[in-house]
């Protein structure tokens, strides 16, 4: 007893203050994240009347063929938007970093890049519909006027084109985010390293490959993490543009889970889906962070 008491060190005043300051934030996380998460787990193993049903909700969720349609749609959507946004964002960031020198112009580009990020997704969905809608969509009008097409293109009714249309809206909104992150990363590249490389005769590709990329690598991980989480939450513009159609072609996981919860009112299955998605993405995140380590090596 005495030994235990002797082993227990009294917290210093600074440590106690630190814990007190942390307490509100930890309390908020507990209330906002931990409690709902525990409730979701309980709901996922319960029937509607509250009785425990084991893993029945999970087996029902996994047996539903619509889940695999939604996973396929989300996978295709991610494979379109993530590489495109990263490539475009990186290209813009390098272009501005290397060619635009006046600070005023850089600031203007910065403000322009922020604009799509602050527009509500619903508004973007509505604008997207004005662009792609059959018979009055701006895109078809332009393509027909310049003679590129002679018949109306069914952007939202053809399965492949519908997926590209909803993905394009995401790319428009989120490429600036990638640009801003990577551009800020490029600002941290030491000028001396670049100058030394230039003196050694390194061309632009070598500079990018051996210097810039070294500093940008952790940011790619950050971008992939953020964007993957966003892709899981994508809802508004898909709902407005296609409603998940044609058929279930663009019914992403978020839209599918919304329908299970709020259309089918199957809260057990919806909770099981939420837990499955959380676990799968935690594993995916772990794999990505191994492939793209945060530390610069």
């Amino acid at each position, binding site marked *: 007893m005495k030994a235990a008491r002797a082993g227990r060190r009294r917290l210093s005043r600074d440590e106690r203050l630190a814990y007190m300051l942390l307490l509100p934030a930890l309390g908020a996380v507990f209330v906002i994240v931990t409690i709902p998460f525990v409730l979701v787990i309980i709901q996922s193993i319960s029937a509607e009347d509250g009785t425990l049903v084991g893993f029945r909700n999970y087996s029902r969720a996994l047996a539903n063929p619509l889940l695999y349609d939604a996973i396929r749609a989300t996978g295709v959507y991610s494979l379109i938007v993530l590489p495109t946004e990263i490539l475009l964002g990186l290209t813009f960031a390098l272009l501005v970093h290397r060619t635009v020198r006046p600070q005023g112009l850089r600031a203007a580009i910065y403000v322009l890049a922020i604009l799509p990020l602050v527009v509500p997704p619903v508004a973007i969905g509505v604008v997207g519909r004005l662009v792609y809608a*059959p018979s009055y969509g701006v895109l078809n009008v332009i393509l027909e006027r310049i003679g590129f097409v002679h018949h109306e293109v*069914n952007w939202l009714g053809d399965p492949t084109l519908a997926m590209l249309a909803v993905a394009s809206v995401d790319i428009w909104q989120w490429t600036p985010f990638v640009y801003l992150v990577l551009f800020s990363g490029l600002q941290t590249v030491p000028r001396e390293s670049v100058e030394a490389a230039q003196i050694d005769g390194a061309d632009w590709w070598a500079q990018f490959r051996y210097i810039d990329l070294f500093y940008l690598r952790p940011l790619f991980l950050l971008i992939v993490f953020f964007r993957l989480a966003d892709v899981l939450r994508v809802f508004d513009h898909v709902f407005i543009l296609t409603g998940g159609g044609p*058929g279930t*072609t663009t019914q992403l996981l978020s839209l599918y889970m919304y329908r299970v919860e709020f259309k*089918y009112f199957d809260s057990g299955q919806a909770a099981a889906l939420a837990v499955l998605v959380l676990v799968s993405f935690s594993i995916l995140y772990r794999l990505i962070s191994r492939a793209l380590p945060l530390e610069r090596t």
Partner: protein
Amino acid sequence: MQRISRREFVKRTAFAGAMLTSIPALIEACTSGSNTTSKTTKLTIAAVQGAEDGPLKKVAPMYQSQTGITMEVVEFPYDQLFEKLVTTFQANGSSYDLCMMDDPWMPKFGTMGALQPLDSNFGFTRDSDIPSIVYDVGTWPPPHGPVPPSEQGKSKHLYGITIVGNVEMFMYRKDLASTAPASWNDVLANAQKFNKSNFYGYVIRGKATNPASSDSLPILWSFGGDIFDSSWKVVLDSTASIDAITFLTQTLKKYAEPGAENTDAADRDRLIAIGQAFQSTTWPAEVTGVVEAAGVSQVAGKMAYIPIPQGPGGKGLGMMGNWLLGIPKGSQNGQAAADFIKWLIKTENMKTYVQNGGIPTRTSLLNDPTLGQSNPYFPALAQSLAAQPNWRPRTDQWNAVETIYGTAVNQAVAGLKTPKDALTAAAEQIRTAMKQAGYPS
């Protein structure tokens, strides 16, 4: 100025924070206490945002000036209203004294026991000037047709009073065709006759889920098809059902607008209003909001409105889409809310409501020639109501069924599946969903 220690600073900040955060709770506690004890001073209505609640917002201030009761209309978009009401009812919340409900929601709310009975609690009785189907749609369990297994044997009560007497109808260009289409074969013949470049013979509202479902159900029924039979057996894959959806998504689609699989009501109204389409199904709100709206529509006065045309069996069945007012169980102002509903459906007040854009349920108002001048669809609506239109299956699983069925019709419109394959797969999904919900499918 006296210096305070860091510990004292943290202590005081924490105390001040606790005081500030508890102020809203104290205020809430004081106000909720006063609600239960004093006379009602305010009624809060959860309403759907759009043409359906516009007239209600206009007449509510009249009630306020007559009674002194403040009327607050809280609006939500269609989907959010349903979700909001379900979560409020699950918590037995008292946020709303009245709620607007689309009629397919009644089975869900009825099964949940979420509403106060208007007949036994507040003395509502049927009025002979209002078609009986309008009262039936607000009654739970349903007075006719199949009753969900969990609701069988329960006593029937009136839980909702219709304030928007929507029934799906049919519209066509009367300036181009001299006679009204009596059957779907006539509709097809007109579609063929009038279809030309940039002018579509028929408009399909084929967007996935609710739009495709609403657009196709009257055709499904008129062809003798259905989703369930009278004992909840799924018959969506029957020959009659497949024939109906084949007619819509293949035969009629040849003369429909491009991108029909992505067309919703607003797109349909636009095509009709700019004079690029001949005919389609329609809802009253679309007529007053766009098609007959002066300054918006190029075809105002050129359209005719009729009940849904007949199918091969000689029957044309419209679909009800009534909006009802009900009183949530959690409301502490039930009597005052009931008084408002009674006031609203009085003939003279309903007339004012109609003059402000409302859709009446009283036969006398639907047949009133002065009101009919500005509402050319009133006679068709009166006929549709008198002909006993169908309601969507009275099951609390309707949202799931509609999502499955509406997706299948959309797949058929888009050509992703044949109507037979789409309906067969949908029937199987509906069987599984209904079985899990305790139905004998």
